[in-house]
């Protein structure tokens, strides 16, 4: 539980009865970002119990919500500590908090601050006014890059299972071709899987705005196809044999399918996809991804027998 901090009221610097009250989640990083954004300022920080989850996710779940806020106002005794009746909330808590209900239930007026904690000093100095830029949830290249390790760790765990299976199948299916050949095939299948991972979970997120299509699957698919072409053009001497050609065809199904699927999974981490949109994308993309994956696997495994 090192990611959570105790809910309740905290003092930043030497706050007075007039100092502003900022509200945040009890996810340690949310709290730390807030503190770091406000060096040398005197204010109160009211930490809600969001079960250690960041503001945005918690407001979507409703744990950063009207009920918790109203209860925390009560239990912290903030109304005896400050004279004013205003709370500054992160804008991204909006999906969970109903400002007019909070006002009715607690007497406190909710003021929505900027999306990013780093804009808080400007917001406070401008008399609690956020510019329209401060109100936008962005998804910059840097923000996307920061998410990649998280995506990769999850996917590599799955890869740890899939890649050895491919390797094993290679040993079983192609052992007739002699040891060096088998090893070559096995290594190539590892390379193929890693390419799909690189394409779908690393480069698609990174290049998101510049890839064709709006659906994430289309973005992942196009990059996957591109990579398969590069991969098969390079270091693959097997173009000559029929088996080799079928195998390349197999990878042409497999890599784009996996890449598209991984790209689709990035919708959850993105900051602008709607549930209706994701459902619509999945209705056609998921069957295609699964289908192409299966076709690819059958071709790949069956290549020596078909040819």
């Amino acid at each position, binding site marked *: 539980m090192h990611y959570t901090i105790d809910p309740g009221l905290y003092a930043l610097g030497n706050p007075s009865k007039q100092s502003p009250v900022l509200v945040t989640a009890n996810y340690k990083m949310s709290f730390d970002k807030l503190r770091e954004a406000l060096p040398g300022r005197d204010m109160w920080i009211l930490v809600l119990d969001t079960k250690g989850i960041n503001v945005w996710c918690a407001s979507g779940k409703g744990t950063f919500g009207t009920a918790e806020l109203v209860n925390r106002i009560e239990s912290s005794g903030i109304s005896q500590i400050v004279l004013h009746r205003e709370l500054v909330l992160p804008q991204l808590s909006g999906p969970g908090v109903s400002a007019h209900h909070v006002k009715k239930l607690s007497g406190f007026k909710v003021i929505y601050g900027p999306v990013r904690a780093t804009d808080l000093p400007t917001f406070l100095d401008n008399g609690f006014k956020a510019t329209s830029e401060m109100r936008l949830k962005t998804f910059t290249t840097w923000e996307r890059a920061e998410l990649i390790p998280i995506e990769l760790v999850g996917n590599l765990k799955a890869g740890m299972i899939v890649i050895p299976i491919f390797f094993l199948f290679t040993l079983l299916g192609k052992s007739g071709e002699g040891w060096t050949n088998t090893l070559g095939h096995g290594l190539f299948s590892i390379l193929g899987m890693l390419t799909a991972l690189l394409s779908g979970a690393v480069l698609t997120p990174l290049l998101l705005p510049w890839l064709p299509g709006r659906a994430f699957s289309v973005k992942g698919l196009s990059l996957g196809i591109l990579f398969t072409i590069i991969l098969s053009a390079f270091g693959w001497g097997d173009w000559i044999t029929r088996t080799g050609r079928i195998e390349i065809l197999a990878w042409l199904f497999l890599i784009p399918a996996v890449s598209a699927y991984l790209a689709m999974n990035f919708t*959850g981490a993105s*900051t602008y996809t*709607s549930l209706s949109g994701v459902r619509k*994308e999945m209705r056609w993309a998921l069957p295609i991804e699964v289908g192409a994956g299966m076709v690819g696997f059958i071709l790949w495994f069956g290549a020596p027998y078909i040819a």
Partner: protein
Amino acid sequence: MGQLIYLKDVVTLKLDQKKCMGCGMCLLVCPHAVLGLTNGKVEIVGRDACMECGACVRNCPAEALQVRSGVGCAVAVINAMLGRKNSSCCCVIDLEEKSVDPCEGSTDESRASCC
């Protein structure tokens, strides 16, 4: 670089302009500048940018806005389809009235990194 926009014409956002009293709360909470205020009435100016977060609906004192809110997360949708609960994604989705909490049972670490 401009704003990133997801699929066209899918969003369930609805506005009843007759109810709107022009308080501007919805404009403050919307993270994608979907709404605009002209002559004291709110208009949907960027429908396709809406991510159905529901912030505007929850903060409209006049109940002029409506949306089927949820989190646009494919992993959560898949987990819900499979009847699975835990995943590294913290999204909540409301599938057929029953709300799913994919975070339940996941480790602290994956919670921290969620979404």
